[in-house]
């Protein structure tokens, strides 16, 4: 109930606005004229259709035309000049764009795993490839480095998060860093 009260409250202050909207009337009149043109083309098309469809269109247009008399478009949409018809096209177009992007993303699927020996010999060229979600990384021979012994592969350069080659699965693009311990 409180959210509804809020929307009622939101409408109350608007009653004080008609005095301020004189400057905005020219803007709303422009929108009104384009709406009327669209309404005319709409009503011509629907004469071919059923009667209820025409009635539904009329009530929608009434809703669109009423506010132009007094209401003020506000917030971050203050200067927005877009009609419902344009949005009816834009929304499906954007949705199709999202689907296309997902499809493209699926065709390049996989997360790249790379190896950084941090001063040791270069290893893991065959294992440097794209892995699917949850896949274990291919086994890699241990790198060597003079004066140091290899302590394992880690997820970060500072070697604080170890990576278990047997158990851990790839969940994002990553680089494995070699850990070294000075030989005594």
């Amino acid at each position: 109930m409180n959210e509804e009260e809020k929307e009622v409250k939101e409408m109350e202050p608007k009653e004080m606005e008609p005095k301020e909207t004189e400057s905005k009337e020219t803007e709303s009149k422009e929108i009104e004229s384009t709406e009327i043109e669209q309404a005319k083309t709409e009503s011509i098309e629907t004469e071919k259709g059923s009667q209820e469809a025409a009635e539904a269109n009329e009530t929608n247009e009434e809703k669109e035309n009423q506010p132009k008399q007094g209401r003020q478009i506000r917030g971050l949409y203050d200067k927005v000049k877009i009609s419902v018809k344009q949005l009816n096209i834009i929304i499906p177009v954007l949705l199709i764009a999202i689907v296309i992007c997902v499809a493209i993303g699926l065709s390049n699927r996989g997360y790249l795993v790379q190896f950084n020996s941090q001063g040791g010999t270069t290893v893991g060229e065959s294992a440097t490839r794209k892995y699917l979600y949850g896949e274990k990384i291919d086994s890699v021979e241990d790198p060597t480095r003079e004066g140091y012994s290899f302590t394992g592969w880690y997820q970060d350069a500072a070697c604080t998060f170890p990576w278990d080659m047997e158990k851990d699965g790839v969940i994002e693009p990553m680089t494995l860093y070699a850990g070294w311990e000075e030989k005594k």
Partner: protein
Amino acid sequence: MAEEKKVAEAVVAAPKKKITGKQVADFLLNNAMYIIILLVVVYVAIKAPAFLKLPSIVNIVSLTAAKLPIALGIAGCIVLTGTDISAGRVVGLSACISASLLTTTFKVFPNMTDPLPLPIVLLLVMVVGAVVGLVNGFSVAKFKLHPFIVTLSTQLIVYGIILLYLMSGVNNGQTLSGLTEGYRGFITGTLFSIGGVAVPNYVLYSIILTALMWLIWNKTTFGKNMFAVGSNEEAANVSGVNVTKTIIMVFVLAGVMYSLTGFLDGARIASANANTGLNYECDAIAACVIGGVSFVGGIGRISGIVVGVLLLQIIFTGLNFLSVDANMLYIIKGLIILVACAIDMRKYLVRK
């Protein structure tokens, strides 16, 4: 004749019950986001059945809980027809502060021997968040600067502070880690287990914060004032609302929420560096718009925000399961924000 009359009446009566094409189109467009998410869930469930298994669901719920407080904070700024792009960096700063004080290897403060008590650090990061919020809110309220300008500068300033903080002591810009058992256990310890899968403690903290924000938004004068100022600042002012105080309090509250997110994230990721919190505000704003917090101002529901964060998390976890190219995710996220805004605008224009 009576039969013919009845038939005629039936023919006239029947068409009125048919659903018009326009109603279907309206329904589809207004709920486009939910339909897309449903399709994604179905597709992922077919391709990777593990998506609907318990560990995956617990993972989605946990990630939603981690990203909820920042969305709750930033929603207040959006209700005021503003924005707050400093959110992510405040998260990062408080994560770094928490990680540097609740650690076993002291690098930023090499002279420290024991980690500070947990409540002290919690209070400290909340104060830091509140101070950033105060600077934001004061500049917006008193000087009438657009929140975008103000929060852009605070974003950069806070980032600079993070970099300087990480360079101090003997740390030299490295990632902070080696957090204390107490800190990690408090945040990521098991709340309870369902079917062998552990639900972490921060889910509970997130629920508590959500309930708190619901109370603030719906049951306090401050909440009512926030919506009044967001709808129409001049009318609210004339009605006796202290607009300056309301705006400042909204930003301070948001700042505290960001710092709490950072406190939780420090332990959740078990590390903190200069990139922690980067671009968190993008996800938070997207979640708010999907959840119905309109850019028109003065409109929003806590339940919507929770749903928005959850749906966004479901989409991206699903795409993760499909191993979709990680670079594509940014484009998809941007398009989702555009669609959410377009649907929001359409609802507003049609409703008027």
